[in-house]
């Protein structure tokens, strides 16, 4: 994975000092909160329901064990002993003091980490496939391109005061494991007929209040024009994105209102102009970055596991992903224990995961946007030993992609934007379906819960989605069905009137019962819904 050179290190160090100075000026009263807010947001520091919250960047979800251990130490030293892994592959700490923030950033800088641009109207953390560099089905590791874009977008002087936040995703497979089509810019690294590697640009996706799937803007951008093309897309947005209404300020609205053709025309015009300005980094830089992502030295070994222990086998069958090397798999560490808070991990658990990465995965981890952790390169021969340790640390839930593997935003328990609590709902659904044995029967079922219309829980992309709303001061929940964030991307549809907390749990039971009654063959919930439509589900819910 990428290692900072002295230049990179100097950048994060300079940023820490810049922020330390800004925080000092805030505490001295030289900056009002209105002036300080965008500055602290650009260092990931929110003011949330209970305290300041710090969102630390984990670039494209990749980190090493030293960094992971540092994240665990920060949870214990500066917070209340735990951290929360997010739907954008970052980590959040909920109980931060402003007077500690610069010191925390300094501690992060020591392990080549930061909280730069994890909030604010700027280019955010660039996300990627959590199996990148390990999976059997990518054409190339997308992360060097993500790193190139990360550097380009860091402290970009033209794009620091955009109309709104900007989220970029880079993948390199036809299988979309990163919700790429639901980003402001989604880049798929592809090969053309001449077997040349280039970038396919999708622009204008997103969830939130008005979910949209990003249309393709350009089929193939040569690699030596990648940054220039991205710059053109951003410049058109910075100039023409709406600034009159916060809820219509994302690029998806601009693309939608101009139409894909007109937006593309404007981008191509700006792109032609920028090609003469020499903004592209030299190709040697991409090569330099790519060297950091070369494969570890894989060894041949067992290609199968001993299947005599059913608990172990269940975990292997659910929580491992096929690797490009046949003696290895990628292993998913679930942060969704039954009845637990999705994505939360204690300082101690984080350090355990760090140690396991060092021991079993060439010192590397990934954070999934589904709020789990991946050890990307685990020898099949080591799986049983790994699983035993995970199980002992309450990290061994064998539930990947089942209903228990739900995404939930922090909701009204933590977030100032929320209308309803999402976490108690997640806990109760998880417990209920585990106790009844239904998790097993339902198979692949992606449940996503958002506590407000900002959709940080990605409910629009849930096979089953739940949205918390405020109904005259009382929490209420809307149910939606049929969303997908994978390459078969679709947006979920609301079933009808909302429910109370108890009511929506019953509703989830009912719709899953409809699926079990009506499924054909090996259909997933999503497939059955797509085949039979909304009516049978509506009938069961509302009579």
């Amino acid at each position, binding site marked *: 994975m990428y290692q900072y*050179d002295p*230049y990179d290190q*100097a*950048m994060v160090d*300079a940023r820490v000092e*810049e922020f330390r*100075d*800004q925080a000092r*000026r805030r505490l001295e009263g*030289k900056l009002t909160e209105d*002036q300080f807010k*965008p*500055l602290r947001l650009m260092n990931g520091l929110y003011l949330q329901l209970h305290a300041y919250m710090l969102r630390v960047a984990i670039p494209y979800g990749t980190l090493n064990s030293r960094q992971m251990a540092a994240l665990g130490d920060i949870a214990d030293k500066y917070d209340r002993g735990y951290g929360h892994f997010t739907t954008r592959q970052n980590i959040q700490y909920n109980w931060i003091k402003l007077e500690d923030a610069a010191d925390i950033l300094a501690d992060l800088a020591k392990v080549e980490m930061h909280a730069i641009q994890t909030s604010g*109207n700027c280019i955010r953390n660039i996300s990627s496939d959590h199996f990148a560099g390990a999976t059997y089905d990518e054409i190339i590791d997308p992360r060097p391109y993500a790193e190139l874009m990360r*550097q*380009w*977008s*860091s*402290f*970009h*002087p*033209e*794009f*620091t*005061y*955009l109309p709104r936040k900007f989220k970029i995703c880079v993948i390199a497979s036809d299988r979309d494991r990163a919700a790429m089509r639901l980003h402001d810019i989604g880049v798929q690294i592809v090969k053309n007929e001449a077997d040349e590697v280039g970038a396919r640009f999708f622009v204008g996706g997103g969830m939130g209040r008005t979910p949209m799937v990003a249309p393709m803007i350009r089929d193939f951008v040569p690699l030596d024009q990648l*940054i220039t093309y991205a710059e053109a897309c951003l*410049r058109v947005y*910075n*100039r023409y994105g709406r*600034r009159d209404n916060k809820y219509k300020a994302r690029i998806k609205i601009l693309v939608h209102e101009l139409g894909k053709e007109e937006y593309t025309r404007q981008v191509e015009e700006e792109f032609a*102009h*920028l090609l003469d*300005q*020499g*903004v592209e*980094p*030299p190709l*040697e*830089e991409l090569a*330099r970055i790519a060297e950091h992502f070369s494969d570890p030295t894989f060894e041949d070994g067992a290609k199968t596991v001993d299947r005599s222990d059913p608990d172990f086998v269940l975990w292997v069958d659910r929580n491992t992903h096929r690797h490009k090397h046949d003696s290895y798999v990628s292993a998913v560490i679930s942060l969704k224990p039954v009845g637990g808070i999705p994505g939360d991990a204690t300082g101690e658990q984080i350090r355990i995961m760090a140690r396991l990465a060092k021991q079993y995965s060439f010192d590397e981890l990934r954070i999934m946007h589904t709020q789990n952790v991946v050890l990307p390169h685990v020898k099949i021969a080591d799986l049983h030993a790994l699983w035993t340790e995970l199980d002992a640390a309450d990290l061994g839930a064998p539930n990947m992609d089942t209903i228990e593997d739900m995404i939930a935003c922090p909701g009204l328990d933590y977030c100032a934007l929320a209308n309803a609590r999402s976490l108690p709902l997640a806990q109760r659904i998880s417990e209920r379906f585990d106790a009844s044995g239904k998790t097993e029967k339902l198979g692949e079922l992606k449940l996503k819960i958002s506590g407000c219309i900002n959709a940080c829980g990605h409910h629009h992309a849930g096979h089953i989605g739940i949205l918390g709303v405020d109904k005259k001061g009382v929490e209420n929940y809307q149910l939606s069905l049929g969303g997908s964030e994978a390459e078969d991307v679709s947006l979920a549809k609301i079933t009808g009137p909302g429910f109370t907390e108890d009511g929506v749990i019953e509703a989830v039971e009912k719709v899953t019962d409809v699926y079990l009654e009506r499924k054909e063959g090996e259909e997933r919930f999503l497939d059955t819904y797509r085949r039979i439509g909304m009516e049978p589900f509506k009938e069961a819910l509302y009579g």
Partner: protein
Amino acid sequence: MAEDIGTSPDDVQFRFRDDEMADHATVTVDACCDQTNATAVRIEPSDDARVLLPFLDRLALVEVNFPSFADGRGYSAARILREEGYTGELRAVGDVLIDQLSHMRRCGFDAFAPTSPLDEDDAARAFATWENVYQHAEDTRQSRLGNARRTLVELRHE
């Protein structure tokens, strides 16, 4: 007679040019394009900077207004003007605060007329925030002409 809507030399707190400050009435983009003798223009966030392209040679001063520091359109306007060959004074006016100075400078602004005067020490520190920069902007574009800085990406491969 077009209204003089610009800042005056007294309003300029920081300037990185040696030449004389323009002492001409500053007009709006619309007025500029109708008149033939305006040499100072003020761009608002919603103006298209490229409308000025036919007049760049005779403009001595372009003011870019930032009614709110959070409205970042002026940064694009500045870079576009420089990229299209404008060499006159490019002045950031309005809600210009300490924490925007270094980015503005990078985008090609060489004069600053904040509505509220800024602390000189804080400003000096702000202009000097970044020893190196990752990406190209106006300050590194000039390096092809022989002056100013290189991006650190270029430095790595020299």
